[in-house]
Structures are given as structure tokens and as C-alpha cells.
């Protein structure tokens, strides 16, 4: 896996008051890779996502997307440059329909302004048709789960697992180059979790997305990851293949405590 670097974090730090949440973190994601970020609760995994998507600017260091710095840019600018994400606690547009949720995410790469839309100019009509087709295509990626009558149902009517799928569909409709998935299998039963692992593999192989994923379920991490990065207290403590990271003494210590690590 020595292809082109798509996302790079160089010495990124983030402090909240006196608490250093991310401390001089270096992270590289290559094009076409699935990289998993693991670590105990409070390790700073979601903060990494928030830094990459621009929710917070970093206090130090730089973030590069395809060689271009995105540090300090507004979130919607970063999104249009090719970063899309899902959320650990789902953040769907609950009172919009399933299809509208996905169509809304096409905003960043469409152009028609409100006056063109009101006048229904040919360009605006063409674009609207393209957005429809895009949304249908993205929803079709999930088989029958988000198809047919579900298009016109409000998002709040979906089951939990389908909401997670819809969030991924919405993220892909933003036409990202890198997809950030925050605990995609959280709260799912074993069958759904397995399905999610397969889905992530399909997103990489068929969808061509580069994926950075936070996940707690080690079976999922083992199944999907090209590389694994372990964080603890905002510091990268291990990086490499799943095998290397899972057997790393410091990772075991971070998860299970010092005494357990000693007795191993």
C-alpha cells in the first residue's frame, strides 16, 4: 500500500482549556485505503474527525487533503473539497424524507441559485434531475433496504440500522474523496454488524472511496482494515496491521490496564 497520500495530519494538536485532547498527532491515509482508528473512550478519536472536517481548527500542526492545507477552513468548504462523514450519535435530517436527506447533501457540488431554481431554468432543471439520479443511485447501493416506498418516508421512521445506512448514503452523495465513518456498527446486532463490514469493503472496492473509520468492534476492525491506528489520551500509541496493533503491549495496556499487561 504505497499509493498516493490523500489525507495527512502533521503534528496536529488540540486543547480544550488545559486539557490536551490531541497531542502532536501524525496520521497518513493513502488513496484507496481503509484505516481504522481505535482506542478507549476519551482517547480523542472523534476529535480527530472533528479536526479533519473543520468543526474545530487545530491549535498546532497542519492538515493536508491531497497536498492542500485544509486547516482552519470552514466545514462546508472542507466538505466540498472532498471530505464527508457520519456521526457517532446519528445526525440525520429527521423530518425530511429519506430521499431528501440524500439530495440535500448534493448541495456542495451543485450550482443552481435560488432564482434559477424558482424560474426553473434549463440548467436548474438538468441539475435537479442529476441530483435525483444521484440520490437514487446512492440509495440503491444498500440493496432493497432504502428503496421503493422508503424514499418518501420521513427519516425518523427508519429503524436504527437503516438510519446508520442512510447516514452513509447521505455522506456519499456529497461526492467525497475520503469518507469518515464514526462507529458505523455501534448499536447493531451481530448480523447487521457483519453486513456493515461487508458494506465498508464494498464502499472501498466498488465505490472507490478512501475510508477512515472509528470502530470499537474488533471483529469489524479486523475484517475491514488495511491499517489500524491506536490512540490513547490523544497520542498515537501504535500503528500497523491489525495483528501488530492488537498484540502491541501499549494497546493492551490502554484497553485493559497496566497490571494485565504485566501478567501477559
Amino acid at each position, binding site marked *: 500500500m504505497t499509493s498516493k497520500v490523500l489525507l495527512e495530519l502533521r503534528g496536529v494538536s488540540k486543547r480544550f482549556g488545559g486539557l490536551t485532547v490531541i497531542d502532536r498527532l501524525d496520521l497518513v491515509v493513502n488513496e484507496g485505503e481503509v484505516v481504522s482508528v481505535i482506542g478507549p473512550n476519551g482517547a480523542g478519536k472523534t476529535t480527530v474527525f472533528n479536526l479533519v472536517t473543520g468543526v474545530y481548527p487545530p491549535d498546532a500542526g497542519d492538515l493536508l487533503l491531497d497536498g492542500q492545507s485544509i486547516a482552519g477552513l470552514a466545514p462546508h468548504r472542507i*466538505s466540498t473539497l472532498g471530505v464527508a*462523514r457520519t456521526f457517532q450519535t446519528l445526525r440525520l*435530517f429527521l423530518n425530511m424524507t429519506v430521499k431528501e436527506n440524500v439530495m440535500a447533501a448534493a448541495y456542495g457540488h451543485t450550482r443552481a441559485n435560488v432564482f434559477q431554481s424558482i424560474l426553473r431554468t434549463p440548467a436548474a432543471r438538468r441539475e*435537479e434531475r442529476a441530483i435525483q439520479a444521484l440520490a437514487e443511485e446512492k440509495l440503491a447501493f444498500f440493496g432493497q433496504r432504502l428503496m421503493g416506498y422508503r424514499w418518501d418516508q420521513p427519516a425518523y*421512521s427508519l429503524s436504527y440500522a437503516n438510519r446508520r445506512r442512510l447516514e452513509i448514503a447521505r455522506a456519499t452523495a456529497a461526492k467525497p474523496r475520503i469518507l469518515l465513518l464514526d462507529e458505523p456498527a455501534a448499536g447493531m446486532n451481530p448480523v447487521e454488524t457483519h453486513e456493515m463490514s461487508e458494506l465498508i469493503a464494498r464502499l472501498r472496492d466498488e465505490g472507490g472511496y478512501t475510508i477512515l473509520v472509528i470502530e470499537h468492534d474488533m471483529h469489524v476492525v479486523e475484517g475491514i482494515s488495511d491499517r489500524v491506528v491506536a490512540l490513547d489520551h490523544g497520542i498515537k500509541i501504535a500503528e500497523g496491521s491489525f495483528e501488530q496493533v492488537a498484540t502491541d503491549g501499549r494497546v493492551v495496556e490502554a484497553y485493559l490496564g497496566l497490571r494485565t499487561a504485566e501478567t501477559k
Partner: protein
Amino acid sequence: MEPRPPESTRIGVDEWVASAAGRTSGHAGAFGLLRRLVDRVPDPARLAIFVAAAALVPVLTSDQYVLRVGFDTLIFALLAIGLNVVVGLAGLLDLGYVAFFGFGAYAYAILSSDHYGLHWPAEASVPVIVVATAIVGLLLGLSSWRLLGDYLAIVTLFFLQAFVVITTNGNDVSFLGFGGSTDLTGGPNGIPGLDPFTIFGLEIDSERGYFYLALVAASIVTAILYLAVRSRTGRAWQAVREDPLAAQLMGMPVNRLKLLAFAFGAGIAGLTGSIQSALSAGVFPDNYDVPLLITVYAMLILGGVGSLSGAILGAIVVNVSLEVLRDANQARWLFLFAILITLVAKVRPWPKLVAVLGGLVGFGYAMHAIVAATWPAGTKGEPAGGDAIGRAIQSWLIHPSHSALEIGNYAFVILLLAVLGLTLVRGVWRTVALVPTIYLAAFVWENRLIATVEAQAATRFLVLGALLIVLMAARPQGLLGSSRVEIV
């Protein structure tokens, strides 16, 4: 695979979806019927039907009063759909909204009256007013970048109050002491003597003309908003309402979209203000204050926040109700009709309904006979308005010829306690207690609420308030709104 579903649902289909058909058909009663009827009509046809029906009003009647009420209703409808852009679509609680209405009205007054001797025709002044109001809206919208929810509400309410204070005291303004003082707004006396609305040489000089003007404006604005909602921008507005952070992370420039929503709402209010002030032929600061704001909000909430047709329906229901309640005879009809409808809808099974209605008639005549025998003056009162139904009710209801207002006041307090008591008792006692409570309500209605002209003026709003409470309790999402989920 999901946990084994219950027998009634098919595998792979959420229970919610499986029961969707049942739920929509399950809407019982008048609201459900109304809802299903409205749902069946496609949207453009709905607008066409509304416009055609409204356009017939001036054909069927030349009553100036009816046309004026129709005009006012259309003005309210315009205000409600404009407010819907900011509150219903973008989810921004804007309490300064009617200031834009006032701004449009004052702008028309300044551009088309003897005040400064300017007499711009509408085709010149209206575009300027709409753009200027939209820009003011944009400036107020800047506060929504940092402030959300209640905080935004307070700041925008402050803006409305500032507008009222400035227009009230704007008869002696100077620019930082330079250039002498000028009378900008006419102060508390406002600006009278506005030009009639003149567009491309066509002067609108009748109530009928203004009705059609407002109808054309309302139709155009409705069509514009209909198209705007179903577009990239409309979806983005709703996304901002649902979850601003998620919207921004999905590539939507949240702040710019908020400003656009504010500018849209303000522009519509400005247009409405210019039309309304042209018919009123004068602008006064008091007309653009909190009472109007509350009325417009009541219309929007009653009709269903977020629904275009709901906002229009809300404006019609509220404004027409208020007008109907002006006249004692019409108000009495409305009162009796409302009680009858409620009883028919809520008291089941039908033998119970018959018992209540029969009991009500019997109880009334019995009370009337007892009072007539013991205190003859107690049944000699004259009905307000005094049409056939008003006189007919006199042989049933106690109506003292003197001290009616004082007795009515006490009865009002007792009525409130009785209604409270009614909510506490259960079963057959509730049915039994219902009869004297309704009779008491009718007594208070006749002897207090519509007994005098002053009382009637207050009763209009009292009844409107009660109507709102009952409707919102029965249908929190409004008449045509769809139920919202805040947290799941």
C-alpha cells in the same frame, strides 16, 4: 437480521412503515377527513382552486366590508407564508418579522405621498421597497450567525421594538446633528394621505381592485415559494432547520442560507406592507407592533409551521373567525355550532349523545320555569343582536333584565371552576355534570361575553384564544402541518 418481527408485520419491513397505511386511514373525525381531502389534490391544482375561489368573491358580492375582510385575509396570508420561510423552513425564531412589514409600509408612504412630495408609481417603488426590505432583513439575519433559538428571538424582538420607537419618534431626526432635522416618519401621527397603488398608469381605487391586487401578489409569492421549497436551496433550508452542524458538514454554507431565508421573508413582508399601506392610505407606528406579530404567528402555528397551504389556511381561519365574532348574532351561531359539533364529535356512543342533548334542552326549560316563577325579572332580558335564534333561545336560557353583567361576572368564575371540575370527574358523573356546565357556558355567553359591544370586542380574542388552545391540543402540528419529531 432484525429480531423476529411480530406476526402482523412482514419480514424486512419496519413496523412503522407496515402500519403507515393504517395510520393515515385511521385519522378519525373532521380533521382526518379534511386532511385526506386536501392530500388528494395535487399542489398546483390546490393553488388554482384557491385562486379561482377567491377571485369569485368580488364577483358574488360588492359589499365593501366583505371585500375589505378578504383583502385583509390575503395580506395576513402573505405575511404568514413569508414568516414560514424564516420560521418553518430555516427554523429561525424571528420575532422581528412585522417590523419588515412596517418598513415596507413606511417606505411606500415616503416614496408615494405628499410627505416628501414624492409620487413614485408602484412599478418603480415596489421593486425598490422589496430589495431595501430584503437588505434590512439580511442585516438583522446577521444576528442569527451567532445566536440560536431563544437568544435570536430576544434580539429580533428588540429589533421590532426599536422599529416602533424609531417610527414613533422619527418626526425630528438629524444625522449626528448635521444638516438640520427632518420629519422622516411623521412621529406618532404617522404619515397620512398615501397615493393609491398606481401600476403602469393603472390606478387602483376600489376595494375590489385592491382585493385583486392582493390576490395576484399572494398567488405569485405562493408560486415562488412553492418552487423555492422544492429546490436545492429549499432542501438546504430544511437541513439547516433540522441540524445546522450536520448541514454544514454536508457542504451547506449555513450562515449564507440563514441570511437568504431572512432576506426572503423580509422581502415578502416589505411587498405586503406596500400593498397594505396603499389601501389604508396611511401608516401609523402602532399598526406594526407585537399584537400583529402574535396574530401572524397564531395563523402560522394554527395552519401548521412549515406548510405553505397551512399558512394560508391559518390566515383564513383566524381572520375570518375574528370578523365573524364581531357581530353578536354571528358570534352566537358560531358558539352554538361549536358546542354542537364538539358534542357530536366527542360524546359517544350515540344514546349518550342523545341523553346529553335531551338533558340540555330539558334542564334549560326547567331552569327557565323555576326562575320565571321565583324571580320574574330573571327571564326578561333582551338578546344582543336579536335575530330569530337569539329570540328563540330566550325561552330556554335565563336572561335577567337587570344586573345581568354582575351576575354574568360571577357566573364566569363559577364556569371556570365547573370546567375544571369537569376534568376531574370520570365516568357517568362527567356526562351528568356536562349538562349544567354547558348551560352555564351559554348563560355566561349571553349575559356577559356578547352582552355589550365592549364585551364583544374582548370576546373575539378570548374565543380565538380558546379555539387555538383546543385546536393545538387536538392537533399539535397544526391543521395542515406534518407531525415533527424533535429527538428520537
